[in-house]
C-alpha cells in the first residue's frame, strides 16, 4: 500500500470506528448527542405508618417497579431495626419489613428516583385478572340497592353505545348528586369506598375491572394520599377511567404504582396503617438518566468511560478532552487556510486561558502582557544577558504583571481578571521573546500579522471549545478522539493549495 492509501485507510478507519461507537452509544445506550435534552427525574418517598400491637410485625408495601410507565433509577429502603426483603408473587413485587417485638407508632420509608414516561403506561406486563366477582347483595336488606343499581345500569346502558361509553355514563350517573338511585346506593354502602362501589356496579353489569393506585406527580408535594383510578376491560384491552368524573384515559401526570386488586399495604400485627407520598422533581440531563438506567450492568463502555473517575478528575478531563479539538482547528487553519501564528500550538493554550477568562478580557489581558513584555524585553536586550536568563527574567516579569493586573482589577471590582492565572506564562514569555526577535528581524508589521493570526486562531479554538455541543460531545463521547485523530491524519496528507496561497500566487503568469 502506498503511503497515501495508508493514510486514507488509517484515517477513515479511525473516523468510522469513532463514529460507530458514537452511534452505538447514542442509539443503543441512549446517550443523547446534543446537550439540550433534559428529563425530569422524580424523587418519590413512600412513608408507611402504622401502630404496632406489641408483638411481631410484618408490613408489606406494593412496589411500582414492574409498572411499565416508569424506570426506577435508584431506590432506597430505610427502616431501623427491621428485617427487610423484596418478595415477588404473580409478577408483583412487595417490600416486606418484619420485626419480632414492636410497639407504638412505626414509620418505614421507601424512597425511589424514577423517570416517568406516560405514553407506555398501559403496556401491560402483568397478567391482570378478568374474572368478575359480583358483590353479595342478596337478601331483603339489599333489595333497594339491587333495584337502584339495576336502574342505574339500565339508564346508562340506554344512553351509551359500547362498553367504554357505558362505563363513562355509569360513573357520571353514580356521581350525579341529583340522581336518586345513586344517592341511595352511596348511602347504603357508605362504609365502602367510592371506587369499590363503582367496581361493584360494573361487575353487576358483567364488566371486569380493578383499581389502579398511583399518584399525581407534582413538584414539591408532601404527605399526599395515593389516588385511585378505575381500570376496565372492554373486551380486548384495558381502559382507565376516573371514578369521580367518568372521563376516560390516563392523566399524563399520573404515575401508576399498582394495578389490580391486591392491597397497597398490608400490616400484620399493627393497625391504622397508611401510606403517604411526597414527590420532588429534579431536572437532570438526559445522559445521566440514560447512565442510571443502565445501572452499570450492560454498559462496559460507560463503565470504563470518564464517568468512572472521581468528579474532580472529570472536570480536569473536560479540559483535556477539548485540547484535541483545538489542535484539529490549528491544523486545519495552518494546512488549509495558511494563517501564520506565533508558535504552532500556542493558540490552543491561549484558547484554554480564554475559556477561563472569557474571550474579550482574555484578548485584552494577553495584549497588555505582550505589550508590556515587549517593552521590558527591549530594555533587557541591552543588558547583554544570556538567552535563558533573559527568558527567565521575562517569566518573572510576566508573573509580576499578572499579579498586578489581578490585584488592580480586584480593587476596581473587575473579578474577571482574577482568572488570569490560567495564562500559560512560560509560553507567553517565549512568545514575547519570539515577537521581539521578529520585530528586530522583520519589522513590527510581521509582529502584528503573527499576533493577529495567533489571536484569530485562538478565538476560533475558543469558540469551538466553549460550544456546549462540542463540550458535551467530547465529554460524553470520548470516541470522538478517534474521529479527530482520523481527521488530523487525513489533513496531514492534504496536498492541495492553502487559501493563503491562492492570494499569494494571484499574480502568477498574469
Amino acid at each position: 500500500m502506498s503511503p497515501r492509501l495508508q493514510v486514507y485507510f488509517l484515517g477513515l478507519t479511525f473516523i468510522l470506528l469513532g463514529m460507530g461507537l458514537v452511534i452505538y452509544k447514542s442509539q443503543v445506550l441512549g446517550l443523547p448527542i446534543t446537550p439540550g435534552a433534559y428529563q425530569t427525574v422524580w424523587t418519590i418517598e413512600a412513608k408507611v405508618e402504622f401502630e404496632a400491637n406489641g408483638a411481631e410485625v410484618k408490613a408489606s408495601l406494593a412496589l411500582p417497579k414492574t409498572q411499565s410507565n416508569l424506570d426506577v433509577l435508584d431506590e432506597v429502603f430505610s427502616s431501623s431495626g427491621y428485617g427487610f426483603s423484596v418478595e415477588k408473587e404473580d409478577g408483583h413485587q412487595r417490600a416486606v419489613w418484619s420485626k419480632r417485638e414492636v410497639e407504638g407508632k412505626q414509620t418505614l420509608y421507601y424512597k425511589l428516583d424514577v423517570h416517568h414516561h406516560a405514553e407506555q403506561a398501559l403496556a401491560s406486563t402483568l397478567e391482570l385478572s378478568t374474572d368478575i366477582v359480583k358483590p353479595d347483595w342478596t337478601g331483603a336488606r339489599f333489595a333497594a340497592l339491587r333495584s337502584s343499581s339495576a336502574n342505574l345500569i339500565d339508564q346508562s346502558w340506554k344512553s351509551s353505545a359500547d362498553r367504554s361509553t357505558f362505563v363513562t355514563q355509569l360513573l357520571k350517573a353514580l356521581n350525579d348528586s341529583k340522581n336518586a338511585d345513586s344517592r341511595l346506593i352511596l348511602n347504603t354502602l357508605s362504609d365502602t369506598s367510592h371506587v369499590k362501589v363503582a367496581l361493584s356496579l360494573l361487575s353487576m353489569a358483567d364488566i371486569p375491572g380493578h383499581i389502579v393506585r398511583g399518584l399525581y406527580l407534582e413538584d414539591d408535594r408532601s404527605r399526599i394520599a395515593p389516588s385511585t383510578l378505575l381500570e376496565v376491560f372492554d373486551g380486548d384491552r384495558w381502559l382507565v377511567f376516573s371514578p369521580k368524573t367518568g372521563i376516560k384515559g390516563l392523566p399524563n401526570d399520573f404515575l401508576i404504582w399498582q394495578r389490580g386488586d391486591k392491597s397497597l399495604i398490608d400490616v400484620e400485627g399493627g393497625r391504622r396503617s397508611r401510606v403517604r407520598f411526597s414527590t420532588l422533581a429534579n431536572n437532570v440531563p438526559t445522559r445521566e438518566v440514560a447512565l442510571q438506567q443502565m445501572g452499570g450492568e450492560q454498559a462496559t463502555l460507560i463503565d470504563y468511560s470518564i464517568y468512572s473517575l472521581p468528579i474532580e478528575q472529570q472536570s480536569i478531563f473536560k479540559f483535556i478532552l477539548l485540547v484535541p479539538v483545538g489542535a484539529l482547528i490549528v491544523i486545519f487553519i495552518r494546512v488549509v487556510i495558511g494563517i501564520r501564528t506565533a508558535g504552532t500550538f500556542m493558540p490552543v493554550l491561549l484558547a484554554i486561558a480564554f475559556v477561563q477568562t472569557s474571550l474579550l478580557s482574555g484578548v485584552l489581558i494577553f495584549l497588555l502582557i505582550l505589550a508590556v513584555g515587549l517593552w521590558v524585553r527591549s530594555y533587557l536586550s541591552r543588558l547583554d544577558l544570556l538567552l535563558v536568563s533573559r527568558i527567565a527574567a521575562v517569566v518573572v516579569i510576566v508573573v509580576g504583571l499578572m499579579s498586578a493586573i489581578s490585584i488592580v482589577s480586584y480593587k476596581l471590582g473587575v473579578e474577571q481578571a482574577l482568572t488570569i492565572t490560567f495564562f500559560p506564562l512560560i509560553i507567553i514569555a517565549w512568545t514575547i521573546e519570539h515577537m521581539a526577535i521578529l520585530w528586530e528581524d522583520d519589522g513590527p508589521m510581521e509582529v502584528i500579522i503573527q499576533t493577529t493570526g495567533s489571536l484569530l486562531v485562538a478565538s476560533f479554538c475558543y469558540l469551538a471549545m466553549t460550544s456546549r455541543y462540542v463540550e458535551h460531545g467530547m465529554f460524553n463521547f470520548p470516541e470522538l478522539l478517534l474521529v479527530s485523530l482520523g481527521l488530523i491524519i487525513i489533513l496531514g496528507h492534504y496536498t492541495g493549495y492553502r487559501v493563503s496561497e491562492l492570494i499569494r500566487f494571484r499574480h502568477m503568469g498574469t
Partner: protein
Amino acid sequence: MFASPGELKRKHVLGMNSRNIEYIARYNPRHLYPLVDDKLKTKVSAQKAGIAVPQLLAVIKSQWQLRDLENIIGQWQKFVIKPTRGSGGKGIVVITGRDAASYVKPNGTQLDLPAIRRHISNILSGLYSLGGKPDSVMFESLIEYDAVFNDFTYEGVPDLRIIVFKGFPVMAMLRCSTHASDGRANLHQGAIGVGIDMATGQSLFAVQHDKPVSRHPDTGRLFSELVIPQWKSILELAAGCFEMTGLGYIGCDIVLDKHQGPVILELNARPGLAIQLASGRGLIDRLRLVENLAIEMLELPVDERVRLCQSWYQEI
C-alpha cells in the same frame, strides 16, 4: 484577490502542502538533514567534494570564547557572522568595514564590540536555530560579488537560488537586496526576486513583495538588462550538490564571487516557493519531467544533466 485552485493547477504552481508531502518528505531522507541544516558541516563536505565555498575564518562554539572576541575578529575588515543552524537568513550579520572601534554594516550603521558580542551570545543560545537548540557561530570571508551585478542590488550580495531536483536544476532566481530588505536577500523582507531563464541565464521577470517590478527601486536599473555570466558552470555547481548531500529536493544558494567565481553559500532542504513568483511559472511540470525520467538518466554525470536541462527548458 483570489486565484482559483484550478487556475494555479493549470499553471503548475507547487503549493506548500504538496511541497512538504510530495517532495520534501518523499525525496529528502531525514537523516541527511543535519548536513544542510548545519552550515559548518555543509562547508566541510563541500570542500571535500571539491565544491567552492566562501572561506571559513573562525568558529565560536561556546559563550566563554566571547571573552576573546576582540582577538578573533579584531584584525578583520570585512566578514560575515552566521549562525551555523540558522534558517531563512536569520541572524546573519555582514560587516563591510571598520570605523575606529566600530564595525560597519552595509547600510552604514555601526556596531560596537558589545553589540556584536551580544548578537553572538544570542546565536549561541539558540535564538536563531531550528527548535531553539544551542548553536555555534561561524565567521566567513565577505563575498565580493561580480561587477555584473552592480546596480542590480543595493547594500547586499545578490545570491542565486537554484532548485535542484534529483540532481537536475529545475528553476532559478536571483535575489537582489534592496534598501527595504536591509541588505538581505530575503524576499519576504522586501528583496527582489528575478526569475532566470534556465537555458541562457537571461532574466525573465522580477517581483518584489510578490508583485511584478521592472526596475530596481533603489538604483533604477532595468532588470531586463541582466544576464548571468558563467551560467553553465553555475548550474553544474548546483547540480553537483545532489551527489554531495544525497537530498533529492534542495535549494542551492550560489554567489558569483569576483575572485573565486561561483561559490555555494548554503543549501536548503526546505526551499521556499517564492521562486515560482519570480519566474512567473510553476514548478510542478518541471518536477514531473524529472520524476518520469528513466533510471539510467538519473545516473548521468553532472555536465550531461545540465545540458539535458538546458535543452528541455528551451522548449518549455
